[in-house]
Structure formats: C-alpha cells, structure tokens
C-alpha cells in the first residue's frame, strides 16, 4: 500500500486509501492523498474484501484505477470483472486471465500447449481415489495431491505409498473445499528437494513481453516463503535464457498483460517444471527491482493505462545480487506460531543499499486480522557473498522491542554453511533449522545474567530499606533506579 502510494506520488497520481474498522489508525493512511472511510462497518465481511462497496466508493469518488495490492482481491477474477464492467482500470491482468491462471488445471493445459515442461500427473481434476491410485501407480511414488484452486500450501498432501492414497485424497479434498470452496484436486509426481525458482515477467496490452530474471525462494516453511533472492546461484546464463523464454511463452499463450510471476520447480539434475503463474505483484518483487533498477509498480500502472513497454529484453540488465528477509511477528522457537502484541519500539538501519518496506511504527499493534508480516528487509550488493554479509549487519541493527519476530531465524539461515554455498532446497528449513536459534553459547549466559540481575535487584531493594534504617547506608541508587524502571 505504502509502496504503491510512493510510486503513484512520483508519477503525479492522486491516491485514495480505505480506512477499516480493524485497523483505523493504520500507518499507510498517512501516505494516501485522501481517505475513504469504511471503519463504521460492523458486518461480517472484512472491508477489504467487500467488492461492491469498493466499486461504489470508486464510482462516488470518480476513481479511475484500482490497484489490488498483493492480497486476496489481486487474484479475484470477480473483482477484476466488476472493475471492467464499471470501466474502472484494474491494475493487473484481465479477469479472464486471472481465472484461467488461478485454476491450476487450466494453467497446466495452457503450459502444455506451449510445450513448457510439466510434471507427470493427472490430466485435470481427479474424480475418485481409485483414479488417483491408478495414475500414481503409472507415474510412480511419491506423488502429491494439489488443490486446483489452491495456493499457499493448503490442500497439498504428499503420498509415499499406495496404502495412504485414499486417506490423503480425502484430506486434500476436504482441505481444498474449506480453504477455496472448491474440492477439486489433481495429482502429480512429487519432486523431492527441489529448488523454487520463479521468473518475473511483464507484458503490455500490445503483445510485448520481457522477463526480468529469476528469484529463488527455496527458503520456505510449509510453502510460506521466508527469504528470497535474485538471481539464483543455481542458474547459469543458458538456463536463465531458456526458462525466461518459457515464462514469456506461457504468458503469451494466456494473453497476459501487467506484471506476473511464473513459478518453476528445479530438480537436482537442473530439469525444471512449470508449477503455476501468479497473476499479481508479489511480496518479493523488491529483489527484482533491486537488480534491474526498475520500478515494477510504475510499469504496472503504465501498462494498465495502455502504454507500451518502454524497453525490450536486450535492455534488461541484471546487476549484482539482492536478498530479502521477511520480518514476521512469529515465534520461531515454537513452530512459527503468530506472535500477537504491541511493538513498543522499532528501529532499523538506513543506507543506500538497504530498502525496508514496512507499515510498522512505535506502538503498532500486531492483530490477528492481518498477516504476520511486519517488514521486508531488502539488501543489494555486488555479489552473493557481500549481500549475505551486508544483510547480516542490517539484521543486527534491526531492533524490535515488545514482540518476537523471525529476525533470529533469518540470521541463523544466513550463518548456515549450506545456505552460503547455495546448497539448499525447499527442505532446507526442515532439515537444517531444527536447532535453537541462538548464535553462541554466550547468548544464553548473557540472558542468564540479566534475569539474575533483575531478581537480585529485587532482593537488594527489599533489604536496602532495612539497611537504610539501621545503618544509614544505601545501596547504589543506580540499582534502585534500575529496579523501579521495569525493563
């Protein structure tokens, strides 16, 4: 939101933001030119998802274009269609394309027609567990069930042997139904320990396409990305050109325009397979901006207005290396559970090669209504080794008081030898990050000292009153002061 407003301001576009009842004092409202107030609502539908209300507000204020961000509305064909109906520019692809690419079965069919490598699996959605068993028998185990309407790991189940097929088919369908109101699932070969590589593409409304290189997002937990980088150490120029061209081809075949992401799995033999296409700007778009020097939001807005892409593929230069850490309000020591609370203070480093996208300030409240991401730390340097060390420094200076975050986790990843060597896959977090996240033995010792100090100060304070009275002698005022001020 803030990110979009900054670009719009630069381009001289007036922005409106929606004020919600869940977060009426949100920081992003300080960045918009005008506020549309939805905070009086008391109904069940979250304000951000109430399509008709947004459309009506847009008409009332004579708004010309809506940027859906990267949340739920960005991938809603219905919302895009409603904008099209009302002649409001939807900053993204057409409703038709969002629908086609949002349905993984249709997307795979399009990829297949464009001769993009696909994993072996069911042709379309499964009708029964028996059909699943038959196909799995043909392509060999392990296999994975996926929700046709899915994303974010929900509705996915890995099956290692035939005896589990029935149970897992049922589980995947139920979960898909609950999460996406669509129980259809399909099945494909499960690749063990792949890398997650995605290509950023751009297309205009005149049939011009470019790709902006890849991002590697293999550091993930339960399919939630935690650290992303661009480029990937797993790709050489030849593979980059080939995968990039395939990404463009699928976008072309779908009739795609705006910014989009084509996701691939890359196996240990450097064979790649099309996974899905995300029809929106993604959280991790910042790393691509850092290495290309482009403003993707600006390009999205220009494409939405019908402008042609101002450059061609040969103009795209990938410069240096960029790394992004997601700082989430999560307790990494107890299974990444959301950590709710008040952020007393936040302080982060500022420098030319560091970009921090955040909506958090001192006294921000972490509520259960929005996702747990507090900030994105994006660092750019001339190569991978340097970007890792600069990010480490930046994380050391990223101080948050009041809640637990993923900062210790990010530091542990950056210290890990396998990560540093580029030797990591989507199983990295499960395999390598089991230990406690402290840096050195001394960390625990220092923490023990603080606890002891505070405890002992309590006892000393109690006793000092007695000593005061008896001997007219006092303990250090600093100790008393320290004790009285709660830490």
């Amino acid at each position, binding site marked *: 939101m803030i990110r979009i407003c900054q670009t719009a301001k630069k381009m001289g576009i007036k922005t409106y933001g929606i004020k919600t009842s869940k977060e009426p004092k949100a920081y992003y409202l300080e960045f918009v030119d005008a506020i549309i107030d939805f905070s009086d609502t008391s109904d069940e539908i979250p304000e951000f998802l109430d399509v008709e209300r947004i459309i009506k507000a847009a008409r009332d204020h004579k708004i010309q274009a809506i940027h859906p961000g990267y949340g739920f509305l960005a991938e809603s064909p219905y919302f895009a269609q409603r904008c099209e109906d009302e002649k409001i520019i939807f900053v993204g692809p057409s409703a038709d394309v969002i629908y086609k690419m949002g349905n993984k079965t249709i997307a795979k069919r399009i990829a297949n027609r464009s001769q993009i490598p696909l994993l072996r699996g069911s042709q379309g959605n499964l009708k029964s567990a028996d059909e699943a068993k038959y196909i799995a028998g043909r392509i060999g185990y392990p296999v994975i069930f996926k929700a046709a309407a899915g994303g974010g790991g*929900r509705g996915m189940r890995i099956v290692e042997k035939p005896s589990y097929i029935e*149970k897992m088919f049922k*589980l995947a369908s*139920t*979960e898909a139904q*609950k*999460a996406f109101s669509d129980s259809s699932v399909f099945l494909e070969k499960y690749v063990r320990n792949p890398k997650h590589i995605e290509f950023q593409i751009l297309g205009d409304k005149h049939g011009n396409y470019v790709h902006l290189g890849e991002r590697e997002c293999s550091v993930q937990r339960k399919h939630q990305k935690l650290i992303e980088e661009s480029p990937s150490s797993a790709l050489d120029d030849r593979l980059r050109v080939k995968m990039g061209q395939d990404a463009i081809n699928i976008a072309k075949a779908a009739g795609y325009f705006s910014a989009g992401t084509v996701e691939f799995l890359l196996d240990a033999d450097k064979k790649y397979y099309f996974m899905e296409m995300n029809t929106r700007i993604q959280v991790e778009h910042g790393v691509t901006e850092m290495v290309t020097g482009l403003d993707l939001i600006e390009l999205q807005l220009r494409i939405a207005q019908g402008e042609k892409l101002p450059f061609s593929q040969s103009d795209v230069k990938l410069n240096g290396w960029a790394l992004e850490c997601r700082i989430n309000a999560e*307790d990494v*020591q*107890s*299974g990444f*559970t959301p950590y709710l609370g008040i952020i*007393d*203070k936040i*302080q982060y480093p500022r420098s030319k090669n560091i970009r921090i996208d955040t909506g958090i300030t001192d006294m921000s409240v972490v509520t259960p209504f929005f996702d747990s991401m507090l900030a994105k730390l994006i660092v750019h340097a001339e190569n991978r080794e340097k970007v890792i060390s600069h990010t480490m420094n930046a994380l050391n200076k990223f*101080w*948050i*008081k*009041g809640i*637990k*975050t993923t*900062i*210790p986790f990010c*530091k542990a990843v950056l210290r890990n030898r396998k990560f540093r060597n580029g030797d990591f896959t989507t199983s990295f977090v499960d395999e390598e990050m089991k230990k*406690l*996240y*402290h*840096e050195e033995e*001394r*960390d*625990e*010792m*220092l*923490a*023990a*000292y*603080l*606890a*002891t*100090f*505070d*405890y*002992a*100060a309590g*006892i*000393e304070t109690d006793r000092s009153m007695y000593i005061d009275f008896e001997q007219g002698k006092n*303990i*250090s005022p600093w*100790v008393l002061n*320290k004790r009285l001020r*709660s*830490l």
Partner: protein
Amino acid sequence: MILSRKKIKEAETEYIAVSEHDKKYAIRNPFGEEITINHRKVDIKILDDDRGFTYILYKRKKYLVEIVEKSQNKYTILLNGVSYKFTIETPISYKRKKYLQKNKLKSKVELVGAPMPGKIVDILVEAGAKVKEGEALIILEAMKMQNEILSPAKGVIKKLFVNQGDIVNKEDVLIEIEKK
C-alpha cells in the same frame, strides 16, 4: 544458629540461574565491580540507549534484551529476539532442588499435547500400536489447515485421550506413549 549479617550478605550474593535445559550459571556479585559467572570474571553492563532500548554490552558487542515475563524466581528473557527461560536459585535452594530431582524416577512415558487449539479430524493410530519417531499420529485441523501431530519418540501407544471430532485446547493431552 545465628549467622552474622556479613555472612548473610555473602551467602546471598551468589545466585544460580538454571536454564530450561538444565544448564547452570553460577553468578556471583551481580552488581559489583567483580562479576563472576561460573567462576570466570566477566565485564558485562546493562544499559539503556536514548530511544529506550535496553541492551547488554559485552566484549564491545551490543545485545538487545528485554524481560518478557517474570513471576517470583521464574524469568523469560528475550536476547536478540531469542527467548530463554530461567529459574533463579540461591545455592541453598539449588541444592535442595537437585536432591529432590535425584529421587524422582526417570519417566518412561511421553505425553503428546495439542500444539494449538483445533478439531481432531482423524486418528491414525490405535492403542497398542508401535510408532516411530516422527510418525503421524493425529490430524488436527486448526485455522483451516490440517496439521499432522507427529510422534515425539519411538514407542508404543498406551492410551488415546481423544476421539475423532473432539475439539481440543492448546496443550491438551492427546496421546500417551510408552518410550522404547
């Protein structure tokens, strides 16, 4: 026996911080000029900066700290975003605790608790079944996700405390396993 005041002071300026993994830090003289931890002299300072962050200065490095929880002698500390739990004892209370611990038998039973509130949608094992460490025992649905509850140890299922369809709270005991 009546101890002199000097003796009381000496006796009580030593504390033992015991971590949740039973690691022991004997800290003498926490306010003094000569702080020792496990008999080694350390130069350690607790400071506040102008923004109101509290940090420890040790060997010229800064460590962001805060006390997130304390009740009597139990503490939870955040240091650089990582939490640590301690129980603070005096040498005498520590000795007593150790003695009591020694007399307790080592437990052979492992209780599997719910990691979050949710609904039991499936139970994959039955009483008497042999399980491996990491094997899925129960499917717990929470926040629209189907979570597999994995066995913490190798052993035999002794007792199931829940049925399919039950709603459980965080840390409710689901299964008892006899470790092998």
